[in-house]
């Protein structure tokens, strides 16, 4: 049985529309007009037990909405979903014992209190007995390297430190599935890397399945084996991260410099010249259309080479290309 299974999930928000000013307000009171926003339109996917699944998409794609439905705090407008065999919005409380969630934009730790106070509170809320809780806290404190931070009021922690505490708090009750909505938001490169490592380690140690949304392709690249890309509430791509790269990283960009002046009409068949200067050029080609070999020999034949750089697009570029394609 998959840990998460979603079939044709839909969510339409009805938003009250109101014209500006007092008159608009009065009219809206009298006869409200609604605007529907289709945040999620027929999503279907599955996540295996213990899997790390990435969920990415631009702003407003419907990622958070999907996560909220899966935690049971939002009712879908249609479709089905089960998480660990529960229908989230019907068995929210039972499910809550078995899943953990972190919303990067909504801290759950009590702001003015040390994190450990929230840990104890959560321990009670999840009905964990005192000695198990104590052991669990020490274990997580070590795994997340937050031993020194637990006694400090949360408001005095850095964002990265706080986020590690947040994720640790969500794991207190040993959930089978962790739903992380933009856990890396606002973190610098080092803090991100550290957070990724701890998530990965907890996945290895306890087999907790993680569904992770992010704007950062790096999160997905380092953490997840499989990725789902959504745009406008629909899945536009789903596959292994490795095949995503293989399929889309076929466009190479080449920078060349020569020891002598280039012919002004320098060009190669099947290669798009981005820029041609006097001593060098920048060009792009797709290896599926133009093989590498003739391009390289063409470059060598054009003169005495000083330097060649071949680069691939970043995952970031690939994803924007996929978004762009789906906008059309």
């Amino acid at each position, binding site marked *: 049985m998959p840990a998460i299974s979603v079939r044709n999930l839909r969510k339409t*928000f*009805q938003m*009250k529309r109101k014209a500006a000013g007092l008159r608009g307000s009065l009219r809206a009171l009298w006869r409200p007009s609604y605007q529907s926003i289709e945040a999620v339109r027929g999503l279907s996917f599955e996540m295996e037990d213990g899997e790390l699944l990435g969920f990415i998409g631009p702003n407003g794609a419907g990622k*958070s909405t999907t996560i*909220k439905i899966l*935690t*049971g*705090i*939002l*009712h879908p407008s249609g479709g089905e979903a089960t998480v*660990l*065999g*529960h229908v989230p919005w019907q*068995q*929210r*409380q*039972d499910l*809550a*014992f*078995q899943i953990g*969630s972190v*919303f990067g*934009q*909504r801290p*759950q730790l*009590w702001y*003015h*209190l040390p994190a450990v*106070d*929230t840990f*104890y*509170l*959560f*321990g*009670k*809320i*999840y*009905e*964990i007995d005192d000695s*198990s809780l104590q052991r669990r806290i020490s274990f997580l404190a070590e795994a997340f390297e937050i031993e020194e931070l637990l006694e400090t*009021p949360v408001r005095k922690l850095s964002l990265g430190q706080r986020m590690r505490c947040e994720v640790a708090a969500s794991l207190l009750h*040993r959930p*089978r599935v962790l739903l992380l909505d933009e856990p890396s938001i606002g973190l610098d490169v080092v803090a991100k890397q550290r957070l990724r490592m701890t998530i990965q380690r907890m996945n290895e140690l306890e087999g907790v399945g993680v569904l992770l949304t992010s704007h950062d392709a790096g999160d997905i690249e380092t953490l997840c084996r499989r990725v789902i890309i959504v745009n406008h509430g629909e899945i536009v791509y789903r596959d292994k991260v490795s095949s995503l790269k293989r399929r889309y990283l076929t466009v190479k960009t080449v920078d060349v410099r020569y020891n002598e002046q280039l012919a002004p009409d320098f060009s190669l068949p099947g290669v798009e010249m981005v820029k041609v200067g006097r001593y060098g050029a920048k060009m792009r080609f797709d290896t599926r259309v133009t093989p590498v070999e003739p391009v390289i020999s063409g470059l060598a034949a054009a003169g005495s080479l000083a330097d060649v750089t071949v680069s691939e697009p970043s995952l970031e570029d690939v994803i924007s290309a996929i978004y762009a394609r789906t906008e059309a």
Partner: protein
Amino acid sequence: MRSREAGALAVEGRVREHSAAAVAGKYWAVFRTQLLNSLAYPIDLLGRSLLIVLFMWIFMNLWRVTYGATGESSIAGLTLADTMWYLMMAEAVMLSKHDLSETFSEQVKDGSVAYLLNKPFNFILYHFAAGLGDSLLAFAGNLLIGSAVVWLMVGPPPGIAGWIFAGAAVVLSWLLDFCFSALIGLSAFVVEETNAFRWIYQKFLLLLGGVLIPLDFFPTWLQTISLNLPFAWIIYGPARLFVEPSLTRLGHVFLQQCIWLAVVGGIVWVIYRRAVARLVINGG
């Protein structure tokens, strides 16, 4: 359905039976955490309690003149000292009740309600436990400072029975007030602006609840109306009990509070169930 299925999927080694003790323990922990949180800012806490000094000073001047003008030592069975101690208790309750309706509507509007719904507790009870944690400290502060001031003005407070009876009734007052706040707060699921309701409720408490004047001073018809509305049992009930702590009165106050709790609490429960069923979380 619930425990069997959940049990089958539960992590090994942890039996989840939802014992009454565990459930009570949750809300106790929420209450405790809120207490700690309020204690994080002792100066704020003190500041909140200073307001009662101002109130008592105004009341003292007002009622000294009134009693002086009538030439009587007691009005409707209350001496000046009784009236002042009544008002001290009324103000202590009024100033310590935690306005949850605002928290509620804020949380509904900005969507943070969601982040409490993803935990295994009841949202309403959670807020009540947290609100109680907050109220208790404020109440203690108000009582301490209020009593000191009133003692200086009119002499010693009512006997120990008054403190105990009123204390017990105040807990039910908070519950009842909480139900009203919840009702106002939950209306945020339906209407955008809840301030109007909050304003109306506040005014009912002030005028018909006995915050500004003991209801005994009202003309009979207005007294009858007030005593048949729930507002009196939030403020007047415990405050009057404080200065006249008889068992009969205690029984009467409790009875009224329980009736209204059942009525208003029932409405809150029904609305909450329906609101959650069609919950729409905002943003993010």
